[in-house]
C-alpha cells in the first residue's frame, strides 16, 4: 500500500470532500466538518483495510494525512 492508495480509500469514505482535496500534507482537521464522526469512520476504515485498530488518543495526535499514513504503517510493523 502506498500513500496514494491510502488517500483514495480515505476519499472514498468522505462523500463531502471534493476530489483531489486530500494530499499527504493536508491537515486532517481542515477536512470540512471534521469531528467525532469522522474519527470513528477513519478508525473503522483503517481497521477494515489495514487490520490495525487506532486508539482515539493516537488519532488525536496526528496532524496530516502523511502522519496518519505513517502511523498506520508503524502500527502494522509493530504487529508483525
Amino acid at each position, binding site marked *: 500500500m502506498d500513500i496514494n492508495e491510502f488517500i483514495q480509500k480515505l476519499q472514498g469514505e468522505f462523500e463531502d470532500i471534493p476530489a483531489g482535496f486530500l494530499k499527504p500534507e493536508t491537515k486532517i482537521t481542515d477536512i470540512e466538518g471534521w469531528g*467525532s*464522526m469522522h*474519527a*470513528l469512520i477513519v*478508525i*473503522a476504515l483503517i*481497521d*477494515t483495510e489495514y487490520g490495525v*485498530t*487506532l*486508539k*482515539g488518543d493516537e*488519532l488525536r495526535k496526528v496532524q496530516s494525512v502523511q502522519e496518519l499514513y505513517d502511523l498506520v504503517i508503524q502500527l502494522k510493523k509493530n504487529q508483525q
Partner: protein
Amino acid sequence: MGACIKAISYYLPEKILTNEELSRIFPEYTPEEIFRRTGVKERRIAAADEIPSDSAVFATEKFFAEHPSCKKEDIDFLIFTTEMVDRRGPATACVLQNTLGLPTQLGAIDIPMGCSGFVYGLMVANALINTKVAKNILFLTGDAATKVIHPRDHELRMIFGDAMAVTLISESENAGIGSFVLGTDGSGAPNLIVEGCCGAEKPTREWLDKYADTGGMPYGMLSMKGTEILNFSLKKVPPLIKELLEKEKLSLEDIDLFVFHQASGFILEVLRRKIKIPKEKFFTNIEYLGNTVAATIPLALYDAMKAGKAKKGDKVLIAGFGIGYSWGATILTI
C-alpha cells in the same frame, strides 16, 4: 435438563424523542445527519420522576398480562439488572419482591451491569437453574440512561433511550442456553463512565453547583469517549464471537441470527462487516429504540421473534459489550 428463555416482554416510556426534536435543540445537525451518525430515528425517555425500579413495575405488569400462563406464584428467583439501583441498601430486587407481589420464598439480587448486563444476568440465571437453586427466574433488565446525560451532550442524547425488559428463564427439558464466553478489562472504565453519584465520586456541593442549571445532575453524569469505545468493540467483539463458536464447535453459518447489544448503528455495522455476518442474519432495532443499555438484547430478541426472524429451534448468538469494559456472549436455542 437445562434452562431456557420461556417468555420476554418489554415496556417503553411514553415520551418519544425524535430526530426532528433533537435537530431543533441542536440546529447544527439535521434529522438525517443524526440518523446517519447513530442509526437512531427515535428513542424513549422515562418521565422525570420515573427511575428503573418504577419501569420494572410497569414492565412486569405488562409481562404477566401478556403471558397469562406465567404465574407470579411460580417465580422463585428475581434478578434486577440495572446501573441505576434505588439506593445503596437494601437491594432494589428485595424491594421489588414486595412491590411486584412476588412470593417471599424467592431469592432476589441486583446485578449492577450495563451493556453486557443481559448476558451476565442470563449466565447467573442459567447457573441457578442448573444447580437446582431455582426453576423460574424473573429477570428484569433496563436502565434510565437519559437521566445521566447532560442536556447539552448532543452525542449521547442522540444515541441513548430508556426501556425495561422482562425475561422469564425456566427449567426446561432441553437446554436453550449454551455456554458462555466472558471478559472484563477495567482499564477501560474511564472511557464510558457515570460520575458524580456515589462511592468513589460523591456528589459534592461543587458538583451540584456546577450543574445547577440542569438540576444538578443528581443521578450522576455519563461520559463516553466514542473513539475508544469503537476501538474496544473492534478489538474485543470479533474474538469473542470466534471463541464462543469454537467452544460450541459451531461455525458462523450454523447461527441463524445474531443479536448484539445495540450500541450504535455505526458500531453495529462496522462489527457486522468485520465479523462477516450476512445482513439478513444480523438483527437490529436501534432505529426506533436507541441504545437502552442492559435492555437492548431482550428488546431485540422480542422484536426478532415477533418479526419471525428468530423461530422455534433457531440458534441465536447474543453478545453484550461495553461499559466496564465488560463483554460476554452465548448461544440461545429458541
